[in-house]
């Protein structure tokens, strides 16, 4: 027999391998399919009311008609405020971890704390926000308290992605800078940050998408069932007001408001989902673009 001739044995092995590959492929598809089916179905159900008007009008006739403007605006407020708070702290924490911290117990504890902060259940964050911001700091239920809660919750997202982008700046850049006599901070400001700013932006985008979707942390810290705000007025909320939010609105109209036509909650879900997915798509596209033009 020729040494490389196919035997029956190897044929069956090959067939088995095809089966296995097929099985794994099916498993992967089984994860993806629900995503597509669900989005498709929701789009179909939502289509009757989905329009620009839906986004820009306030709810009418006991939330049975009209749009979602106050909720949309509230979500924008919450997300922006949480970003304003979380971005500097997160970036500085990442700079500390990547540029300053030595390999010691403190650094390890910080790393562990970041992982833990990311893993704390959202409802526990809500309890924290209620205990610390609403009650202890005396902010009351307000946009401020809710967005601070969101900021603490989303901090790990920013820390992790900024740290990654800082770590991607080659050490040689820093050394070159130090050797011309720059201080550590000058090096960071002139060399490290400019070279990793795009990675930070990806982190911010991810933070926004995460904060926009959360419900539990804002439920007890600043989201209301209904608030009448002027349509089209971008400055309709004060930071000490409570606000409506998309995620909370979806929850209330699907559990509490009677006689809502089915299309409205579906459309609200689609707007929320669409917002989050589009923001995410931005972050992904941005990442791919960055990878393609990396200069080192």
């Amino acid at each position, binding site marked *: 027999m020729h040494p490389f001739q196919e035997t029956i044995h190897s044929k069956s092995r090959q067939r088995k391998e095809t089966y296995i590959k097929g099985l794994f492929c099916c498993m992967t598809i089984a994860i993806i399919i629900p995503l597509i089916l669900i989005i498709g179905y929701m789009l179909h159900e939502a289509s009757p009311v989905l329009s620009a008007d839906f986004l820009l009008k306030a709810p009418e006739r006991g939330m049975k008609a009209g749009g979602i403007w106050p909720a949309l605006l509230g979500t924008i407020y919450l997300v922006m405020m949480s970003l304003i708070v979380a971005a500097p702290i997160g970036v500085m924490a990442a700079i500390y971890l990547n540029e300053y911290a030595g390999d010691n117990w403190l650094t390890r504890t910080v790393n562990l704390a970041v992982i833990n902060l990311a893993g704390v259940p959202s409802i526990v964050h809500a309890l924290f926000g209620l205990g610390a911001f609403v009650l202890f700091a005396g902010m009351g239920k307000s946009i401020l308290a809710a967005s601070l809660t969101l900021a603490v919750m989303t901090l790990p997202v920013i820390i992790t992605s900024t740290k990654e982008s800082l770590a991607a700046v080659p050490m040689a850049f820093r050394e070159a800078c130090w050797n011309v*006599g720059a201080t550590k901070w000058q090096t960071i400001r002139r060399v490290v940050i400019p070279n990793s700013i795009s990675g930070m932006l990806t982190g911010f985008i991810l933070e926004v998408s995460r904060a926009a979707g959360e419900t539990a942390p804002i439920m007890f810290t600043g989201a209301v069932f209904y*608030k009448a705000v002027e349509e089209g007025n971008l400055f309709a909320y004060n930071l000490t007001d409570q606000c409506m939010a998309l995620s909370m609105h979806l929850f*209330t109209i*699907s559990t509490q408001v*009677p006689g809502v036509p089915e299309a409205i909650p579906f459309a609200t879900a689609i707007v929320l989902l669409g917002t989050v997915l589009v923001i995410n798509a931005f972050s992904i596209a941005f990442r791919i673009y960055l990878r393609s033009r990396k200069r080192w």
Partner: protein
Amino acid sequence: MFLGNFNNQLIKKMKLKHMKQLARNSSSILLGLALIGCGSNNTSQTANQNSSSSKTMIQNAGSDTMVNLAQAWAENYAKVNSEVSIEVSGGGSGTGIAALINGTTDIANCSRAMKAAEQQKAKDASGKDPKEYIMGYDALAVYVHKDCPLEELSLEQLAEIYGENGTITKWSELGITIPGCTSDEIIRVSRQSSSGTFAYFREAVLGEERDYKLGSRDMHGSKEVVELVQNTPCAIGYSGMGYATPEVKMLKISKTLGAEAYAPNVENTIAKTYPIARPLFVYSLGEPEGALKNYVDWCLGPEGQRIVNDSGYVSLTN
């Protein structure tokens, strides 16, 4: 790498000499800044609560049963008086009362009356007696699936279905079979344990002392109850009659087995023949003044009462 670190350390050491003194100064500056930050934050908050600015804020919290009514009021009042902005949050009667006691809401919506102890607490905290208004009435309807052949139940039967150690667990024990419900099990749909609806149903059906049987599906909102009953042939649930849809059936309720049963509707609620009906309250701290008074008066007026009817409750004018 080594050189870089070395450089850096040198610089650090040099810097330290100059900086030691500054360190103390700068930390006190920061502390000062932080204090200013807190101070300004506090003042802005009180300014807003006093709302001397362009818009007056009325905060409205409480019963989930009334949250839709309160929302409809707020929505329509915004058209009548654009100077006033009303925040409506649900959370339940207990929350509304608690918020009133804490002073974090102007109006508490309650689907049960304030207890004497709560009234006392409010008085102790603010020095004012809570002022009670009855805004309308609500009948709690008992819902079943539209294919369910059952027409009426007595309060005792309801208690045996819902109460702790209750004896009725199967539909066949009520002498019926429901198409589409093969398991024959009665799926009890209830409300989560701190809602006013939960408390009132317990009081009216089970009595003060008896608790619910565990294992009921405790829904977050009244609408969820009706929707679940609508989709579940085996289910029974209770909710305000305003939540009825064409897809569910409301049972007639009798006080005792064999007595005449009444349907939940406006007439029977007013005649007080329907046994599970309750007034809907609004509380404020002390006699309301200014914008708040105007708002409450408007709610009690013809426009406000029309909204009560439209929202599926029974208005005072009926």
